[in-house]
């Protein structure tokens, strides 16, 4: 009898842990899907938009460049002033030294992506390195492994945010085609569509906490289905109070399938219905 009691008690303890593991939010993390981009057809705006998606997606930049203080919050600070000040810093002795304007910022950005320790922003160096070693990985190497074209796109995005002329030009050659099975098909759920187009990078969706774009709770009540469609396809037609124009990519009409657009619209409409 003692044996049975002990086994039943131990199993009950075990099952309580299992139950707890099953009632917390469940997320399965799949390897990042390779985005197929027709590089040859990209104009500067397309390059900037691609760079933005890379910044929040494959580049994993927002893991550290956010409001938690691990790295400068590049989506919140005035990049034009900030980059100019860094290049002018007497500690800076990198490749942008001696260059002017957009060319200097372009060179600085490329250097900081490919050789992050060339200049470390004060207070953000590895512990004990006296700001001489950056904790940032080289983005062209694993695990991030951005291609040359992708690095260009991220630079274009940051230059655009800094308010300077975009110095990189869309590459003439298309990047290697993704391996079989890696090509991305149309998203089949609203969450997949929102992940695919990087909406949660700027908007607070699925707990991302982002606040670059306006909050979307209740957006269905405010704009209706047609209004949401228009806001996605023509983001500059009407700008929410307190937000800047030209931040949201303007080429979703070319990138999204109708089914994906409708999934996102359905989801955003549902945000306004709960609790009514």
């Amino acid at each position, binding site marked *: 009898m003692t044996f049975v009691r002990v086994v039943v008690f131990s199993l009950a*303890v075990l099952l309580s842990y299992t139950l707890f593991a099953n009632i917390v939010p469940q997320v399965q993390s799949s390897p990042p899907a390779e985005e197929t981009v027709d590089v040859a057809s990209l104009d500067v705006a397309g390059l900037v938009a691609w760079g933005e998606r890379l910044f929040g997606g494959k580049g994993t930049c927002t893991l550290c460049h956010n409001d938690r*203080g691990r790295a400068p919050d590049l989506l919140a600070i005035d990049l034009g002033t900030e980059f100019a000040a860094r290049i002018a810093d007497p500690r800076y002795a990198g490749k942008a030294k001696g260059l002017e304007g957009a060319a200097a910022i372009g060179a600085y950005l490329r250097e900081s992506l490919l050789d992050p320790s060339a200049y470390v922003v004060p207070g953000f160096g590895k512990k004990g390195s006296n700001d001489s070693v950056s*904790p940032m990985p080289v983005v062209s190497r694993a695990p991030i492994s951005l291609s040359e074209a992708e690095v260009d796109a991220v630079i274009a995005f940051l230059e655009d945010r800094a308010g300077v002329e975009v110095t990189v030009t869309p590459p003439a050659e298309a990047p290697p085609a993704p391996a079989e099975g890696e090509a991305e098909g149309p998203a089949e759920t609203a969450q997949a569509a929102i992940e695919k187009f990087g909406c949660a990078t700027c908007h607070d969706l*699925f707990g991302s906490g982002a606040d670059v774009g306006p909050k979307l709770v209740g957006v269905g009540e405010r704009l209706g289905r047609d209004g949401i469609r228009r806001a996605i396809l023509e983001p500059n037609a009407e700008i929410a109070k307190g937000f800047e124009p030209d931040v949201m990519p303007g080429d979703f009409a070319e990138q999204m399938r109708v089914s994906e657009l409708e999934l996102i619209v359905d989801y955003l409409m549902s*945000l306004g219905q*709960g609790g009514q």
Partner: protein
Amino acid sequence: MRRGPLVVLLLALAAAFLLLPDLAFAGEPAPVPSRADYPTVGGMTGRPVVWALAQMHLFLAAFVLAVPMFVLVIELTGVLSEDARYDSMAREFMRISMAAYALTALVGGGLTLALFVFYPVVMDYLLRVFDGQVLVYALLFGLESVFLYLYYYSWDALRFGNRKWFHLSLGLVLNAVGSTLMFVANAWVTFMMAPSGVDSTGAVTGSIWQIMRGPLWNPLNLHRFLANIAYGGAIVGAYAAYRFLSARTAEERAHYDWMGYTSNLIAVIGFLPLPFAGYWLMAEIYAYSQQMGITAMGGILAWLFIIQAVLIGSILLAANYYLWCGLGRTEGGRRYTPFVPFIALVLVGGFLVWVTPHTLILTPEEVRMLGGTRHKVLGPLGIMPAKNTAVNLMLLATFVSFQLFRRAGRIATVRWAWAGNAVIVALYAVAVANIVGAGLYGYVTPTVYKVGSSVPQVATTLSVIVFSLLIDGAMNRGAVRREVHWGRMAVRSQYALFVLPVAFTWMMGLMGYIRSSVRTNWHVYTIMKDASPDAYIPTIGDAGNAITLVTVGFMAVIIFVFWLTQLGSIKQPAPSGLAE
């Protein structure tokens, strides 16, 4: 024959093996596996099989390696105190471990087979990298077996005098070999997380020592070393509790009560510094790759640390509850019972802070109800400074429980006892102020220094433990000892000793899942991608279910081991007519 030159030659060979780069494969990059490189057996992919076998092997190996460590200490205590009870208990612990040893090797063999069947390309690369180290591992395994059997079977032959010291030396060598065996195995794991001694293509550029000595190797070695002791203590505690519950005589009950108390003490001693070893490991992970650190602590795995908090909370509550029940073993213990509710309050309060999450995955409706993604009042309790403060206070409270039990059995007779008590109380008061103060400082310091601010907290907790023990030890010289009524324990107290191994086992499974998941979709981080259909991180629920299944399997194995141990002590009486 002159042995000098031979020894020098062997040492030179060992040094060359450790320090010279592996020239045979230098310059050859890691292979790039494709989906076809991952065979299935009966429609089953490799991950569930390898996961279950690796976890089971780890549970058994942790237990088998840990037991001889504390057995050696108990045996030495028996020699120094000239109390034969220690010797007999140490031997009984070893008997349990011996029954588990063969099963550990069996599961280890199964794991190796599964790895080669399901992950041939990965194993081919790892064998290329570690090369001759595999033979060293095999040699160490052979030596471990030799010294384990020698240590156990020579127990009675080397029982007294100088022979006993020789026996203790055998135990020391056994532990040295066992620990080295674990460190060598750990190198494979840490190489896969943070490769060293290879270039960015995976080609070997360094010596085997550089390959082994990656940034996470020593933190993991320490973490597993301490965790094994706590785990081993918890498992033998369950054995003692079961024998206590099924004891038929008062002597038996007294023996197994004492054994249970000792086991709980071993588990707590191993457990107290464990969070600090965990901080070190995590700090090194962040230093190696901030991305990896954030994936573990701030990404999709963050909820696992809330589950870990629940497990550690239940371990501390169970260990403390057992110690509080133990106050009833002595007459002097009763005067300390009024402190128990306060200790419980600290433990429960600390536990609640620890389980408070920071960043949650929320539905839009929940975001609306919270008014944001973080709770306005409880949100600040979700970050590291609050959790570090909570865990340090919980550990201090646990130490108080232990200290009260120790004091219950003694009356200090030194004249300065009141001053000693005052200093100890002052130590605790300053420690609490320091821990809370450092915690508050953590809120105003940049994120990168938040973990750093836990160092003074850890130092404070450890200092209080060390200085309190020293002062108590000095105060209790020549103390009047009160009789401890071993066996005078409530039945329900023994169930606390079953919570410990269940929680430890499940937590080890959970930590294994985290450790493996931080590599995301890489076999060898940044070097070799996982192209298998299992290259995703399963949900916490799925992982929890898998861990539970393996834990149930381990429980079945341990029940078998306990049964074998008990069987070994049963002697069938001779049938009438036959001489004994």
